[in-house]
């Protein structure tokens, strides 16, 4: 091995193995990242991605490794401090920032860490933070508290913080999970800029579209084993999904015509100031209507109005032919509405509570007997029914919901809403944080529900998802429904072009 060739790599790992208990989390995995490269690390939850990152950052010590090399320097054992000093930085999904501190202090925080007393120079801090942001081509109010910024900007702050530590290799764990498409695009621009400046970026993401867009190469890991390293050129989403899950995923357009189905929901001229305008929307029973567009287009806001969380300024809605004007979420549920929130972790489920309680929370009144008390047996029956119906994999119904995987959690969310016997189900970005494999399972359920006559509004900014699972697609932008498409007569690239144009 010559030094010249070694220098071109930010990171080289050869045959790294790591086991937890009896589980082989990594099995002789090779992983190489070139300097200045945007590399994607792909795989389902629990495939070993996080373990790999933790080995590189010195959090975990591998059982065996033929080679660990950072920036051409061979290292026998990495410690977290050493990793940071060498220029390795991880931006975790939760960002690990400090909401009540200023932007500048967040960016410069790592300088303050340590027990040797130092005095804090705010002026210098602000100047340095400003310089880093300049390098990213971003302008931000440095004195503003972090919590006043939207998540996309906090993401940028986290990147700036990594650069402040002279990071030359940055791992980004699901950086776009809670970003809108346009925000994602801006983030990807920054990533490209960094790459051009010689910073290597490892992107860990579920969103296959952006993986293919940003990365030069992709390393796929499955069940702790290296599947392979592939150039992204010529790679398709379907192929990548197959590599990650190990089996073929059906992703065909499944649109149908429903000429005779009755109208389940209708909105006419629905407007809410500053959010959406003059929205006409018709959903038939048994129909899956896809609603796509960039976030900020007013999609979630529309769903909130339909669900009674906010009220429209003008326009009217009808549910099953009757006028529909919900005063509260409760009223909306009573009339047959159900809403799977885009934020499963903090809004869709109560992470502290049991699977059973999360399943019955919206149908308490179905469980009460004449005494007004909740019947334990009825509750257990209902939970058992839905667990079986949706094939949720659980230990016991009393286990906390947080013990389940993302896909299974989302199935519980579905169970919760299906138990209310809805007429219209709104799915707002239902596959955020759900594995590729589990996604297919969720959409199988959605399809089956539609076949049983449930009207479904599928909100998503992942074009393929909408294409493959909707009967009709509505494109929303700037608070207005722009156009309707038939998935059978348009291709994914064509639709993407219209949306991102």
């Amino acid at each position, binding site marked *: 091995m010559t030094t010249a060739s070694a220098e071109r790599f930010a990171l080289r790992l050869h045959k790294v193995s790591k086991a*937890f*208990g009896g589980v082989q989390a990594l099995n002789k995995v090779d992983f190489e990242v070139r300097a200045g490269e945007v590399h994607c690390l792909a795989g389902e939850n629990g495939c070993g991605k996080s373990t790999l990152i933790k080995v590189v950052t010195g959090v975990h010590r591998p059982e065996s490794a033929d080679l660990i090399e950072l920036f051409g320097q061979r290292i026998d054992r990495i410690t977290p401090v050493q990793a940071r000093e060498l220029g390795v930085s991880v931006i975790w999904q939760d960002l690990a920032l400090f909401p009540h501190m200023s932007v500048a202090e967040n960016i410069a925080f790592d300088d303050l860490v340590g027990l040797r007393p130092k005095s804090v120079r705010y002026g210098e801090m602000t100047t340095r933070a400003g310089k880093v942001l300049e390098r990213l081509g971003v302008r931000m109010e440095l004195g503003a508290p972090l919590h006043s910024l939207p998540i996309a900007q906090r993401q940028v702050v986290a990147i700036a913080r990594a650069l402040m530590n002279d990071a030359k290799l940055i791992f980004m764990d699901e950086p776009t999970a809670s970003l809108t498409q346009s925000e994602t695009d801006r983030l990807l621009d920054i990533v490209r800029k960094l790459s051009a400046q010689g910073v290597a970026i490892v992107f860990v993401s579920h969103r296959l579209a952006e993986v293919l867009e940003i990365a030069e190469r992709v390393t796929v890991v499955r069940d702790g084993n290296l599947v392979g390293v592939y150039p992204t050129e010529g790679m398709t989403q379907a192929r990548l999904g197959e590599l990650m899950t190990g089996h073929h995923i059906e992703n065909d357009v499944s649109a149908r015509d429903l000429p005779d189905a009755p109208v389940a929901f209708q909105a006419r001229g629905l407007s809410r100031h500053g959010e959406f305008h003059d929205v006409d929307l018709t959903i038939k029973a048994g129909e899956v209507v896809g609603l796509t567009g960039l976030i900020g287009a007013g999609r979630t806001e529309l769903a909130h109005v339909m669900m009674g*969380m906010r009220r429209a300024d003008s326009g009217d809605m009808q549910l099953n032919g009757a006028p529909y004007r919900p005063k*509260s*979420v*409760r009223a*909306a*549920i009573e009339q047959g509405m159900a*809403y799977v*929130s885009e934020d499963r972790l*903090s*809004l*869709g*489920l*109560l*992470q*502290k*509570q*049991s699977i059973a*309680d999360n399943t019955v*929370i*919206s149908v*308490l*009144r179905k469980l*009460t007997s004449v005494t*007004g*008390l*909740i019947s334990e047996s009825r509750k257990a029956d209902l939970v058992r029914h839905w667990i079986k119906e949706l094939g949720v994999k659980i*230990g*016991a119904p*009393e*286990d*906390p919901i947080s*013990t389940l995987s993302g896909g299974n959690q989302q199935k519980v969310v579905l169970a*919760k809403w299906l138990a*209310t016997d809805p007429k219209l189900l709104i799915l707002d970005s239902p596959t955020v944080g759900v594995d590729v494999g589990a996604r297919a399972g969720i959409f199988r359920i959605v399809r089956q529900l539609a076949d049983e006559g449930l009207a479904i509004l599928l909100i998503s900014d992942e074009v393929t998802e909408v294409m493959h699972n909707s009967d009709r697609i509505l494109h929303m932008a700037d608070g207005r429904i722009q156009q309707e498409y038939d998935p059978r007569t348009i291709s994914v690239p064509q639709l993407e072009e219209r949306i991102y144009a």
Partner: protein
Amino acid sequence: MTALTKRLSQLKSGAGGENAGLLVMLAVLVLVFSIASPRFLTGANLGSMGFQMPLLGLLTLAMLAPILSGGLNLAIVYTANICGLTLAWTIMQFGGAEAGIGAFILGGVLAMIVGAIAGAVMGAVVAYVGAHPILVSLAMMIFLRGLGEFLTRGGDISGFPDYMRVLGHGELAGIPVPLILFGLIAFGWHVLLRRTPHGFSVYMTGSNMKATEYAGLNAKRTLVLIYTLSGLLCAIAGILMAARFNSVRVGHGEAMLLITVLACFLGGIDPFGGHGRVAPVILALIILQVLSSGLNLIGANQHLATAVWGLFLIAVMVLRSDQIRQMVNFFSRKDI
């Protein structure tokens, strides 16, 4: 491993494990004290324990529900005082010691209304303003304490009709009346929290208010209602206090405030809300009472009992954490 995880989650949710652990502690304490003092397991001592515990018990239940909802009610003692004042004032209007039973009933109802209002105000501020429950109830505590001192000028009101003694000191089939009252209310509280939709909503609101609202439950109304009920329970405690001491003074029972929180934590209530049951808290109360009576019998005073309560809570929390840690260590050791 899954069995362990299950056991762990059970322990954390504090269902079965909590009761068993506390029962063992109770048994040990009873054993120790009955050996240490021959008078411990006598009818007289048990009877006096039965008279002493209900007051702290009622206040603890009033504290328990707000904690489950993710808050705290630091105003319980002074709410009880103000309600006691309301009762006393009503009785004084009808002739003090000569007042009829009607006056007592009217006074009791008024007291409950006052308690409910105090609670409802706190609940409304917590729910609709979004202020921190500690601060809200603290302000309410300072206000009610001031109000009471203002109305009574720091003095006390005494001289109640004799029949009120029955409530405070009477026995029914050998069981102290306050204990019967407490038993009924505790059972009612258990049913309310564990079996009614409102109780369910309290637990849900306590673990995540926003998600609860997204699921269609009215979390804000739940909060107002639970603080109102907490205030109502304080009123009952205030009435009982008046009956037991035959007088009302603002500041009566002040020392019980933090003891109620201590009892809740001892009973395994999640300090952040969302988890906890009535039964282990009652066990915790019995343990505290046994400690206090037992120490009293072997010649220590209430102050030592207070100290022991504090040390006991520390010991229990340390034990619980160690249990959990050991179990976690057991299968994470190989992971490190």
